């Protein structure tokens, strides 16, 4: 079967001007004066002439997509995702390379493209539909479905400038949702709208994908990518750096994000504290089951953290807390003393504190540790990102498969009762 999308070595170059006078757009006056001044400038700068820099937004980008696949494109800001979509949507031409698309293309780079505020909802449905490439007959046929999906039946004949932003976005997406292209290209349009709307959009995209349409989806929303896509591609500085199944590519994305953090492990503990001069925490090490320092914890394995403290004078009844944050800085887990009766009476001088969690219930991914120590109601020391570690995938519960979707893991027990009794559980599939 021929690939639906075949991107062959494309590059897109933008010329960045380093002129002293920066203007937002070219004017004829500027061009004429620069033509006259050019001979002089050439004499001044030698053979270089005008100082231009080529910025390659895409370079040697290659990938293919089979019909029916739902591919997520992820990457940091500036990686070239939107530029790639613009090239695929034929809005801008590549500087080099070639793209082959098999099938009609529907492009959603923005919700409500072409909506005119003076026209009514009904008129805008026709206009937007025509702009997206639907024929008048198609729009008329799907008109009722579109209005239903958007839930704006009462306001069809009011000018769109009177709509609330939610209604506007719902109507715009409703029209786009009823496009039936063979290739659908979507760029983070789900970033607008409330949760109910986003769920509706995702549902619709999944449905469209199941009908054999190839979907190319760009987003920063990892859970959305993980839910919707069957394959993912990671872009960095204009090229493909990783492609494959979604968890692997998302993991690589997180790894790159984390390694880009300015503070490394030793640095966080050695760095001066923002609010005070006292540095109580001087070391933090993660130990594996054998007691050796490690940066990786298998799924559901014990979490053994060894903290080095240098407190100087004795501290009575300190409370030590350990918080685990995910890549986005969201707190996923906090543990602290006193816990299960472990009360620390006092600490003095240099000492080591061990913190153990029997089975870490976190899903595979990258995490960082925050440390804090308080006593007598006041915080004595706190360190963000004192330690970074990763939980690796594995078969934790003998299920014969790796981690399924979710932010944490749990052991489960199942049993079957014969039918006819008051309660029964169906066998797991």
């Amino acid at each position: 079967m021929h690939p639906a999308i075949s991107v062959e070595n494309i590059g897109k170059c933008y010329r960045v001007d380093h002129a002293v006078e920066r203007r937002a757009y070219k004017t004829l006056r500027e061009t004429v004066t620069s033509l006259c001044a050019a001979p002089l400038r050439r004499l001044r700068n030698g053979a270089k002439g005008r100082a231009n820099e080529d910025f390659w937004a895409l370079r040697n980008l290659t990938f293919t997509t089979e019909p029916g696949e739902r591919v997520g494109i992820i990457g940091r800001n500036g990686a070239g995702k939107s530029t790639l979509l613009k090239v695929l949507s034929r809005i801008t031409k590549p500087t080099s390379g070639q793209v082959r698309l098999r099938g009609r293309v529907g492009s959603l780079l923005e919700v409500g493209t072409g909506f005119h505020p003076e026209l009514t909802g009904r008129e805008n449905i026709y206009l937007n539909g025509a702009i997206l490439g639907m024929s008048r007959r198609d729009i008329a046929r799907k008109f009722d479905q579109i209005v239903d999906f958007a839930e704006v039946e009462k306001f069809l004949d009011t000018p769109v400038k009177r709509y609330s932003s939610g209604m506007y976005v719902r109507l715009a997406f409703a029209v786009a949702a009823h496009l039936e292209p063979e290739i659908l290209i979507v760029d983070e349009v789900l970033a607008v709208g409330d949760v109910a709307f986003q769920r509706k959009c995702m549902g619709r995209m999944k449905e469209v994908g199941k009908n054999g349409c190839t979907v190319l989806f760009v987003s920063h929303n990892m859970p959305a990518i993980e839910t919707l896509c069957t394959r993912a591609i990671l872009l960095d500085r204009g090229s493909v750096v990783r492609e494959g199944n979604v968890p692997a590519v998302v993991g690589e994305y997180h790894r790159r994000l984390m390694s880009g953090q300015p503070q490394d492990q030793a640095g966080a503990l050695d760095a001066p504290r923002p609010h005070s001069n006292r540095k109580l925490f001087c070391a933090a090490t993660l130990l594996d089951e054998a007691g050796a320092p490690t940066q990786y914890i298998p799924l559901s394995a014990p979490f053994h953290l060894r903290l080095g403290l240098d407190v100087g004078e004795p501290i009575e009844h300190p409370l030590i807390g350990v918080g685990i944050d995910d890549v986005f800085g969201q707190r996923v887990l906090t543990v602290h003393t006193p816990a299960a009766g472990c009360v620390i009476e006092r600490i003095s001088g240099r000492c080591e504190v061990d913190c153990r969690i029997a089975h870490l219930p976190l899903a595979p991914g990258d995490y960082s540790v925050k440390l804090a120590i308080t006593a007598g109601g006041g915080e004595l020391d706190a360190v963000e990102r004192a330690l970074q570690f990763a939980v690796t995938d594995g078969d934790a519960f003998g299920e014969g498969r790796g981690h399924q979707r979710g932010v944490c893991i749990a052991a489960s027990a199942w049993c079957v009762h014969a039918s006819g009794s008051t309660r029964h559980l169906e066998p797991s599939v």
Partner: protein
Amino acid sequence: MDTSALIKQPPLSATEPESSPEARPVPAEQHETVICPSKGWQLLNVRELWRFRELLYFLTWRDIKVRYKQTALGAAWAVLQPAMMMVVFTVFFRGIAKVPAGNLPYPLYVFAGLLPWSFFATSIANAGNSVVGSERLITKIYFPRLAIPFASVGAAIVDFCIATTMLIGLMLYYAVFGGIPINFTAEILLAPLIFALIVLAATGVGTLMAALNAAYRDFRYVIPFLVQLWLFATPTVYMDPFQNNPGTRMQVVLWANPVAGLIGAFRAAMLGLPVPWTHLFVSAFVSVMLFVAGCFYFRRVEDSFADII
């Protein structure tokens, strides 16, 4: 450390409870698009324009609707504007300048010239600003960019048709009540063809202006100036310039200016005056050249619109 190597990745169906997407039966003839770098001069893609004809219709319809939304007089403005110009021109050129018009009532004479001129002026002004005005569309979705200036010209055509009804009304009024013998000759059937040539000229100039405006924003100021200048180069609107023995310079302008010949011919066809055939043919030729030049230049630069707008 590549942890995915440690675990045998579960098959797709294991993670997704739903069945794998069923591929739609591949249609025998699949629409294939190839995207490659810009090629410089390229031909008009007529087939693509035809495929997007409904979009062209909708863009025209949008321009018209929007123009008359929330106005008190609505479409009456299509008639009122040339009518008011007619009054001004009559007062000035007939009343003050005493320009002859044969045995035709001057208001009618000037109105028949003003109509196509009004169409030409609004076409090139609107088309010239259309591409820059559609910046949001151009950077977000693909369609043949020629549809944008074409739609502006289309909207002006609709206005013209509305205003022509007033012209015919005036002609009938003068014929029935004014007692002036208006010859409804067969040449009146030529008028739509002459108008089609004016459309070609307007489209050519408008498209050229649109492309230049996108690249060099100062054209926004050049366009109104250009329109005014062009009116001075087209005295045919309010008089018959050949009657006054124009000098060589004026002659060159009159023959090079396609609109001069076409407006003269249009008026002659509508009002039953003798049609200036040579002038018409020369103007027709120049119009076609303008159209071709405008469209070719536009096609050459349209790929870079999304990057420069």
